[in-house]
C-alpha cells in the first residue's frame, strides 16, 4: 500500500475508533432494560419515542443550537477583528497585550471563568439567559479564532496585498477580495471549534443560563439518577440530526466551488479582483 493508501486507512480507522463509543450509546438506547449496560434487553424504540415526546429535550436542543450558532459567529468576528488589529498595531507592547488579553479565557480553568462571567453579568445588570450564554460562550471561543486567524494572516503573501493596492483597491476592497478569501480555512475551522465547544459546554451554560437549559445542562441534571437509555437516545438523536444537517449543507454547497488556496491565480490575472 502506498502512503496515500496508508493515510486513507488511518483516516477510516480513526473515524471508526471515534464512532465506536457512540455506537455503543446508540446500541444501549435500543435496549428495553431500564439500566444501561450488559446484557442488553429486547430491542425497542420506546426511548426514542419518550425522548421525542419530552418537551424539555426539544427546547434544550433548539436552545443549544441557537446559542452555538450565535456565539460562534460572534467569536469568529471578534477573533478576526482582534487578530487583524493585533497585526496592524505599531507598538509591540500593545500587540502582545492585545493578544495576551484575547487568549486569557482559554487559559483560565472553566469553572473560574464561568463564575467570573456570572458575577460580571450581574454587575452590568444582565440577567442569565440566552444572551448571557451567547456572550459567555463567544468570549470563551474567541481565542480559537484569534490564534487560527492570526496564524493564517501572518502567512498572507505580501505580494497579493501589494498588487491589489497598486491596482487601486481601497482597504475595504482589499479586505473583501484578498484577505478574507485567504482566511477562509481559519474562519471555518475556528467557527467549527467554537460551535462545537459551545454546544458541548456545561459549566458556562449552567451558571449563565438561568432557567433556560441547554442540552448538556439537561443531561447533567438527569445523570444524577443514572445513565438511562433515554439519555442515550437523546444523544443519538442529536448525532443523527448533526449528520443530517452536515449532509444537507454539503449537498447544497456541492455545486459552488470553494475558493482555491490562492485567491489570485496568475492565470486569471486581473479578473480575480
Amino acid at each position: 500500500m502506498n502512503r496515500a493508501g496508508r493515510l486513507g486507512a488511518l483516516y477510516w480507522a480513526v473515524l471508526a475508533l471515534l464512532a465506536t463509543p457512540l455506537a455503543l450509546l446508540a446500541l444501549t438506547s435500543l435496549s428495553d432494560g431500564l439500566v444501561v449496560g450488559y446484557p442488553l434487553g429486547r430491542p425497542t424504540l420506546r426511548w426514542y419515542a419518550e425522548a421525542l415526546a419530552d418537551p424539555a429535550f426539544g427546547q434544550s436542543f433548539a436552545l443549544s443550537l441557537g446559542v452555538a450558532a450565535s456565539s460562534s459567529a460572534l467569536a469568529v468576528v471578534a477573533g478576526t477583528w482582534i487578530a487583524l488589529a493585533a497585526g496592524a498595531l505599531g507598538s509591540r507592547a500593545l500587540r502582545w497585550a492585545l493578544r495576551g488579553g484575547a487568549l486569557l479565557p482559554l487559559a483560565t480553568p472553566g469553572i473560574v471563568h464561568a463564575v467570573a462571567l456570572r458575577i460580571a453579568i450581574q454587575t452590568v445588570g444582565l440577567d442569565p439567559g440566552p444572551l448571557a450564554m451567547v456572550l459567555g460562550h463567544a468570549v470563551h471561543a474567541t481565542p480559537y479564532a484569534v490564534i487560527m486567524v492570526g496564524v493564517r494572516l501572518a502567512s498572507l503573501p505580501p505580494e497579493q496585498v501589494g498588487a491589489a493596492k497598486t491596482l487601486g483597491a481601497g482597504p475595504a476592497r482589499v479586505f473583501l477580495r484578498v484577505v478574507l478569501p485567504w482566511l477562509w480555512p481559519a474562519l471555518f475551522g475556528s467557527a467549527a471549534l467554537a460551535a462545537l465547544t459551545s454546544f458541548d459546554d456545561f459549566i458556562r451554560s449552567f451558571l449563565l443560563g438561568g432557567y433556560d437549559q441547554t442540552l448538556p445542562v439537561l443531561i447533567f441534571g438527569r445523570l444524577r439518577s443514572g445513565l438511562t437509555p433515554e439519555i442515550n437516545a437523546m444523544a443519538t438523536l442529536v448525532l443523527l440530526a448533526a449528520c443530517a444537517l452536515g449532509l444537507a449543507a454539503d449537498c447544497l454547497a456541492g455545486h459552488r466551488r470553494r475558493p482555491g488556496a490562492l485567491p489570485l491565480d496568475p492565470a486569471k490575472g486581473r479578473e480575480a479582483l
Partner: protein
Amino acid sequence: MRRAARALFLAVPLIWVAVAHLGPLAAMVRISLLAVYPGPPGATPPWSVAAYAAFLEGTGFRFSLWRSLWLAVATTGAALLLAYPLAYHVALKVEPARRGRRLALLLAPFWTSEVLRMFALVLLLANRGAVNSLLRWAGLAPLPILYGNGAVLAGLLYAVLLTMLLPLYAALERMRPDVLAAAATLGARAGRRFWQVTLPLSASGVAAGVVLTFLATLGIFAAPALLGGAGTPVFATTIVDMFGAASGRWPLGAAFGFILLAAGTAAAVCLGALAPGLRRARWP
C-alpha cells in the same frame, strides 16, 4: 476620516478585550485576595493572601498541578501525532470536492455531549464492558484499562482531538501541491519532502494547534473525573471542589485558578509555540 476609521478599527478590539476578557477576571482576582467570599450579608470581608499561601502548604496541591501539566503535555503530544496524518490526508490527499465531507465526518462525533462521550468510553472499557466482554468470549484475558492513566489519556484525547486537528488542517490546506511537486521533480524523496518542505511550512499550524490543545486540556475536568482512578485528582477537579464548598473556599478556588492560568501560560510559552507564527502582518 481615514485616520479616524483606522483609530476606531484598532480601538474597538482593545476595548472589547479589556471589558469582556479582562473585566470578569479582575473580579476573580479580587475574590482570590479576600478571606472569604461572599462574606456575611452586609459586611465586607477582609483582604488576605491566605488563599495563595494555601497552595504552598503541604505537597498535595503542587503535586496535583504538576500531574495536570504532565498529563496535558502527554495529551498534546499524542493529539499531534494522531491529528497530523489525519489533517495531512484530508487537506492534501483528498480531492477538494470531497474535502468538506471528509472533514465533516470527522467532526460529527463531537456533536455528542462531552460527558456522554466519557460515559460511552466507560461502557466500552469497563470490566463487563464491550471490549472486555468480547475478549472473554474469545477466551482472552480482560484488559483493566479503565480507571487508570491510560483511560484518562484516551478520554482527554477524545475531547481535544479537534482542537489539534482544525488548526493543522487550516495550515496544511493552503499548501500548494505544486510546491511539493516541484520538490519531487528536483529529486527530493518522500521523507525529505516531508521534513524539509511540508513540516516547516505547516509549522505555524502546529504551533497554533499545540498551544490551543495544551491550554484546553489543562482546563478539562470531565475526563479525569469520570475515567480516573483513586490517584491524585487533576488540578481542575480540585478547583471545582473549592467552588462547591462554603464561602471560606471560594478565594482558594479563585487563587488556584490563577495559579493554573499562570502555570499553563508559562508552559505554553515554554513550548516555544507562539513566536514563529505571529509576525507583524502586512495588512492593512
